[in-house]
């Protein structure tokens, strides 16, 4: 498998100039550069991690890059997903990434998979590559990538981020541990906030993604000591790196097939919060607007987002009571007092947290109505001057 067969690979004069700084490194040299050209890497996700990964793997001269993503570029991606530019907003990420990769290195072959990686397509897609880089943003896909790599015997270069902290390692390489040795069980849904919910400092995926790219280049060229068996932890606030040794767990159940990873991780096919949102009465933003325009006096609109979010955008007239204060019970009596004699409506960004707030309030006998789609729907359908984030 690795290193790739270089017997039929030649570098053109243009490539020799382009990669000259690699060619004069004794560790890489002509043979290493040929290995890079002969190699193929699949990047799952072209977001925060996938962006720097693909940029550097393309620049380094990897011959073939595969990209799996079904998302389109959004303005809120640009703070960290540096492979995409403003002119690509609204267009498929994989197309944006391909255009940028060819700008950096026109010799690179780019294969696009505009799909979610699933148990039905993962083996077929991954089988065609030497190495997989995991740049996904959710647990079901991480377990899927891991298991497919184990079944196919492919190294899995892993990275993951949270606000100011990151992790990276190499899984399933030469008998080393895999993701299930690190995290045998997924966390309960909702325990770990996503970047969209928790925020992330923009340079963080750059650092972790480039560590992944470095590991991929080392695996391909066969140099150095890989991160296999070591989980690298990075803390941007302290600017410190730590390492934790990881061994394969002999008691880990054998991975012999792909499973239903949504079920395994306890999440439905729905977006976070959607399940809760289905269990409480709802109102559309247009209906809410009509109510507010009619009579605001006997209506209480509660905003359960965080104060930082309320600084970005608000629906006029809403009272801020963050969800954690409701779930802790701290603010229940405040809400009861405010809502006394009024009809209660609750909103958040997208409708998930407000549904949770209503479930918590309901346990204390306080009934209310969820604003479907949250302030995001409000800015799209009612007032475009309210910024989206």
């Amino acid at each position, binding site marked *: 498998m690795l290193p790739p067969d270089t017997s039929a690979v030649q570098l053109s004069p243009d490539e020799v100039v382009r990669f000259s700084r690699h060619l004069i490194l004794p560790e890489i040299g002509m043979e290493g550069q040929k290995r890079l050209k002969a190699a193929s890497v699949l990047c799952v*996700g072209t*977001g*925060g*991690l*996938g962006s720097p990964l693909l940029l550097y793997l393309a620049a380094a001269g990897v011959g073939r890059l595969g990209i799996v993503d079904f998302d389109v570029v959004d303005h809120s991606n640009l703070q960290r997903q540096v492979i995409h530019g403003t002119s690509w907003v609204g267009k498929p990420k994989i197309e944006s990434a391909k255009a940028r990769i060819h700008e950096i290195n026109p010799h690179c072959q780019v294969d696009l998979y505009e799909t979610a990686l699933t148990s039905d397509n993962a083996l077929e897609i991954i089988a065609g590559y030497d190495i997989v880089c*995991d*740049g*996904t*943003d*959710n*647990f079901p896909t*991480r377990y899927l990538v891991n298991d497919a790599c184990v079944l196919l015997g492919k190294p899995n270069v892993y*990275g*993951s*981020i*949270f*606000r100011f*902290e*990151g*992790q990276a390692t190499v899984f399933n390489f030469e008998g080393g541990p895999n993701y299930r040795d*690190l*995290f*045998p*069980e*997924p*966390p*309960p849904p*909702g*325990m*770990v*906030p*996503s*970047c969209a919910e*928790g925020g*992330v400092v923009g340079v963080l*995926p750059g650092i972790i993604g480039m560590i992944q790219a470095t590991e991929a280049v080392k695996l391909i060229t066969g140099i150095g000591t890989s991160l296999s068996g070591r*989980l690298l*932890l990075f803390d941007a*606030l302290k600017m410190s790196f*730590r*390492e*934790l*040794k*990881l*061994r394969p767990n002999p008691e880990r159940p054998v991975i012999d097939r792909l499973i239903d990873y949504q079920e395994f991780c306890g999440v439905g096919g729905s977006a976070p919060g959607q399940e809760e949102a289905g269990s409480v009465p709802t109102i559309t933003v247009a209906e809410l607007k009509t109510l507010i325009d009619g009579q605001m006096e006997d209506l209480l609109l509660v905003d359960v987002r965080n104060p930082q979010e309320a600084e970005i955008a608000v629906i006029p007239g809403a009272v801020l009571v963050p*969800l*954690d204060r409701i*779930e*802790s*019970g701290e603010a229940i009596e405040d809400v009861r007092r405010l809502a006394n004699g009024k009809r209660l409506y609750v909103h958040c960004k997208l409708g998930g947290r407000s549904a949770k707030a209503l479930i918590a309030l309901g346990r204390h006998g306080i009934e209310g109505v969820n604003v479907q789609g949250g302030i995001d729907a409000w800015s799209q359908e009612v007032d475009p001057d309210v910024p989206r984030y």
Partner: protein
Amino acid sequence: MPQAQSTQTPMTQQAGTVVRVRLFAALRERAGWGERLIRLDAGTATPVALWRQLALEVSPNSHATDLPPSIRVAINQAFATADTPLRPGDEVAFLPPITGG
């Protein structure tokens, strides 16, 4: 910003086992600290017992007394099982999964 705090406890045999605890990601944020010296209560000195003693918040307003299976333990910079005996001066890290990308 949460600062690492330490209760500079002298380590003596009589005083009971003192270990250095490190928390990461959301565990660190919810606890408000990332590193502390902790004197273990009397009883079995294991990460599981330490976890019960710390009574940390695992998800918003939910305190789990039993160590959730999704949180991993590392002792002296190596992943270990949660029932591994702790010795004075050990560094115990509790690491929740993260998945941003």
